[in-house]
């Protein structure tokens, strides 16, 4: 008790020293509390984001595969191997008491080519002509004709500003072609030979209309029904879920808005959101850039309007702008020149008048879209799939990372994967055997081909008779295959008809589970720790000799999962530096204080105090400092955490939304946070005290007296 009394007296006597040392300890304790709260809360939020959106608690992939699964890693498919026996694995996993659900998956990326606006319209015209639908042909033809007229006007304007001599030959001939296509005679003769006219428009004119839409889509190929039931963050936004057992595609709402929506409309949405956050048109550079793009890219609107829509939009814009201008391009340009005062009105007008007349989304709910994949075996694969709707992961609407995942049915996924079946392999082997090609190694290719014994081979095949040449053609002579117009949808028995029939086919659960997949998501039952789940799953893998590797959600999510480790490292390093500085400063302060107290300590020794008592005096003083200032620091830290834990911290960007598991971040102090912070402060203070205490122990009464003299 006496030691505590002395300690408190010393703290009050040496106020400057106490303030410096105390300030450092308060800051260190504060940092530990806030840091631990941040880390613990981010870890918990991120686990919800990752586990409940795509990854589940545990992922399985093929053992020994070249790459490790990285769900939020690089685009494109990694070489993570294949899993062939999912039904067997599923049955075994579902028997484990720790496992709640098992979902087959495969993550990949593909491209959807949109073509330029004219390409898309010409495709519609070609389809109408093929279908023999005269009314539709007429409607689309008039629209195409208007687009060609607009293109002609635009190119003529461009010609006025361009140095004719520097213009490429392609450009010069393109200008002539567009002018030709804009003549009444061209359109008057369209019905006589529509296919020749279409070829001319597709090959000579469409290339002059720049701007091609290309979507890069990342998707999870999965049992869509099971995915929907297991991942509780999944919720539909538009359309309907993919019917159980059917093929289909669901866009993530984030991707749908960012990539599929009409660009002008999307930019207007972004301006609206930014203004709602308090930004001003006059001062926000990004808003200015969006306005500039909307003004210069007026074609995104004018090209999409047919004659009737053009008149309606023209009238609405003239009224809004109080203008007599008749050029729609100039009207759109002026209309898009928004400011803080007129934005809300023009935004509403855009969605009321213009949006219904343009294709607001390149792919709409119910459309069939064409996805281009690059299969594992190297084939470029293409499939048609119906878009049923859009969905989101609850709370992660604004997250780029979670928003990048779209959902595709497993059967279509397998088609895009182009996985080699035994039949395909046998067919390839037969073709290779027939070709007689001898494999050539890269390193020895030159010597084998052109070294001694090699050399160039020139065959003179002029003697081959026309009959021999004709026999070389594996199909009928092209002349015999002059095309006939086939109504769309009749399809016959060809590949297209087969593909069409797949759209409505309902696959059994055995068919869905039966094919190849890339990875398996395992959701654990509530309350089961991931470590325990991993132990159980690994035991099952060993017992059944499955060629599988288990990864917890952190490892399976790739770099993002390791992000928490990076934050830990940064925090630990910061605390280490703070403690190191504290240690040096506290040590110096106590050494100075010890020297100042030489007489006092010498006197204490003279009246019988033992060295151990001197040591205890310093230790107790250190503990008192640690407890008093540590508690103050912890209180400050806890106060701050509690404040943001209640009101939340706005997630400033997409990545923060993902880390926070929602638009706001709510930190919370873990139960072990307070003891850990206090313990750390005490240990550092104690270490800082050791050297001054050792010095104090060596002070003798004689030295104290000499010091006073």
């Amino acid at each position, binding site marked *: 008790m006496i030691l505590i009394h002395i300690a408190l007296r010393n703290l009050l006597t040496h106020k400057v020293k106490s303030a410096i040392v105390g300030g450092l300890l308060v800051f260190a304790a504060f940092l530990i509390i806030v840091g631990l709260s941040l880390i613990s809360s981010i870890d918990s939020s991120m686990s919800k984001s990752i586990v409940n959106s795509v990854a589940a608690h545990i992922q399985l992939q093929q053992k020994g595969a070249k790459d490790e699964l990285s769900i939020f890693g690089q685009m494109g498919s990694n*070489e993570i191997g294949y899993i062939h026996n999912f039904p067997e694995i599923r049955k075994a996993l579902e028997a484990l008491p720790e496992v709640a659900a098992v979902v087959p998956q495969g993550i990949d990326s593909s491209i959807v*080519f949109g073509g330029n606006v004219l390409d898309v319209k010409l*495709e519609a015209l*070609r389809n109408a002509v093929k279908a023999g639908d005269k009314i539709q042909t007429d409607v689309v033809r008039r629209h195409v004709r208007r687009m060609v007229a607009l293109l002609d006007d635009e190119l003529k304007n461009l010609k006025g500003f361009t140095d004719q001599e520097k213009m*490429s030959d*392609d450009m010069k001939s393109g200008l002539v072609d567009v002018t030709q296509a804009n003549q009444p005679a061209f359109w008057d003769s369209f019905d006589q030979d529509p*296919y020749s006219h*279409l*070829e001319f428009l*597709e090959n000579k004119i*469409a*290339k002059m209309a720049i701007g*091609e839409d290309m979507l890069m889509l990342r998707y999870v190929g999965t049992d869509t029904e099971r995915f929907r039931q297991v991942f509780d963050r999944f919720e539909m936004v538009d359309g309907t879920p993919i019917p159980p057992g059917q093929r289909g595609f669901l866009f993530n709402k984030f991707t749908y808005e960012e990539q599929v929506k009409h660009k002008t409309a999307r930019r207007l949405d972004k301006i609206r959101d930014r203004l709602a956050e308090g930004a001003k048109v006059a001062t926000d550079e990004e808003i200015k850039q969006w306005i500039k793009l909307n003004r210069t890219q007026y074609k995104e609107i004018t090209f999409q309007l047919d004659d009737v829509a053009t008149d309606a939009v023209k009238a609405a814009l003239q009224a809004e702008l109080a203008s007599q201008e008749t050029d729609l391009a100039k009207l759109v340009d002026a209309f898009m020149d928004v400011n803080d005062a007129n934005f809300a009105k023009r935004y509403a007008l855009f969605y009321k008048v213009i949006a219904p007349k343009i294709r607001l989304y390149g792919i709409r709910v119910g459309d069939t879209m*064409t996805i*281009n994949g*690059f*299969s*594992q*075996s*190297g*084939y*470029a694969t*293409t499939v*048609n799939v119906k878009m049923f709707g859009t969905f989101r992961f609850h709370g992660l609407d604004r997250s780029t990372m979670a928003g990048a995942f779209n959902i595709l049915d497993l059967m279509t996924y397998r088609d895009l994967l182009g996985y*080699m079946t035994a039949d*395909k*392999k046998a*067919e*390839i082997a037969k*073709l290779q055997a027939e*070709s007689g*090609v001898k*494999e*050539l190694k*890269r390193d020895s*290719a*030159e010597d084998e*081909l*052109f070294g001694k014994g090699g050399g*160039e*081979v*020139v*065959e*003179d*095949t*002029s003697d*081959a008779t026309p009959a021999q*040449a004709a026999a*070389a*053609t*594996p*199909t009928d002579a*092209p*002349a015999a*295959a002059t*095309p*006939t117009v086939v109504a769309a949808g009749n399809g*016959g028995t*060809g*590949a297209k008809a087969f593909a069409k029939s797949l759209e409505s086919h309902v696959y059994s659960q055995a068919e869905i589970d039966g094919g190849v997949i890339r990875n398996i998501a395992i959701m654990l039952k509530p309350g089961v720790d991931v470590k325990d789940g991993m132990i159980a799953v690994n035991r099952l893998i060993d017992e059944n000799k499955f060629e599988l590797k288990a990864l917890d959600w952190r490892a399976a999510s790739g770099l993002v999962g390791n992000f928490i480790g990076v934050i830990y490292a940064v925090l630990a390093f910061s605390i280490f530096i703070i403690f190191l500085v504290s240690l040096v400063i506290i040590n110096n302060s106590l050494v100075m204080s010890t020297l100042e107290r030489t007489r006092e300590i010498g006197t204490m020794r003279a009246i019988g105090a033992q060295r151990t008592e001197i040591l205890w005096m310093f230790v107790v003083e250190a503990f008192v400092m640690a407890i008093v200032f540590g508690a103050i620091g912890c209180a400050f830290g806890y106060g701050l955490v509690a404040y943001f834990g209640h009101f939340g911290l706005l997630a400033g960007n997409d990545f923060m939304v993902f880390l926070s598991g929602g638009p706001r971040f709510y930190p919370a102090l873990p139960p072990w946070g307070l003891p850990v912070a206090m313990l750390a402060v005490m240990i550092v203070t104690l270490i800082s005290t050791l050297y001054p205490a050792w010095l104090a122990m060596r002070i003798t009464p004689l030295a104290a007296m000499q010091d006073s003299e």
Partner: protein
Amino acid sequence: MKYFLTACLFLTALPAWADDAPAAAADVQPAPLTEPEALKWIQQLDDRQRNSGDYKTVVYIERKERNKNDVVFDALVFRRDADDKLMILFEAPKSEKGKGYLRVDKNLWMYDPTTGKWERRTEREKIGGTDSRRADFDESRLAEEYSIKYEGPEKLGAMWTHKMTLTLKKGVDAAYAKLVLWLSTTSGNTLKKQEFADSGKLMRTTYTPKWAKKFSPSKKGDVWTPKEIRIFDEVEKGNSTTILLKEQDLNALPANLFTKAWLESQSR
């Protein structure tokens, strides 16, 4: 003696006189070419592969990729050089039958019968996902598209060749910015070709050890075509593509062949 010397001189000059193609033996180091001569060689290379009429061939494409299954196609290639038209129609395997590429002017289209869609593709399109490009099957336009610099004679294996560097002319769209060619001193054909990206990175090395020549009635002369092309991917080491061109036919093709409608009709 006088007659003998005249005869010797005549025989020495005969190969160059008889044909534009150089006729030095492959194992004898040739005299270096001047820049105009090098240009002439490239022009001749283009000209000899060009047919004024139509062209059809059966091709076999095999791609080997490390740790992956082989990709193999049988296809038909049709060309009408006068109109800058090219079509590749896949015949096998079954899953690829009916797919095709159509080049008309500067447009390269790809058609997939399972989706019924036409898509524009770029010059850099990997044909059927292999290392081959459109230009590997198309008319040779080297002199038109590239500037030529002669590097000197160089040995390729046991054969002497003329090495040339070709740089893409401004405003021309081609798959590669720079080519280095090794031309046979005996036939003038390209035996080795290296293709470089804009950055200067080597992308592909191609060997063309076998050529065929065939009399073209429309050209009234020989047309030279590669018979075997070996492409090595220099970016993804270990990947390679082999192309065999068989049964070339220089007879006229139907007028409506190079159209979308014709290609679509092949898969109905």
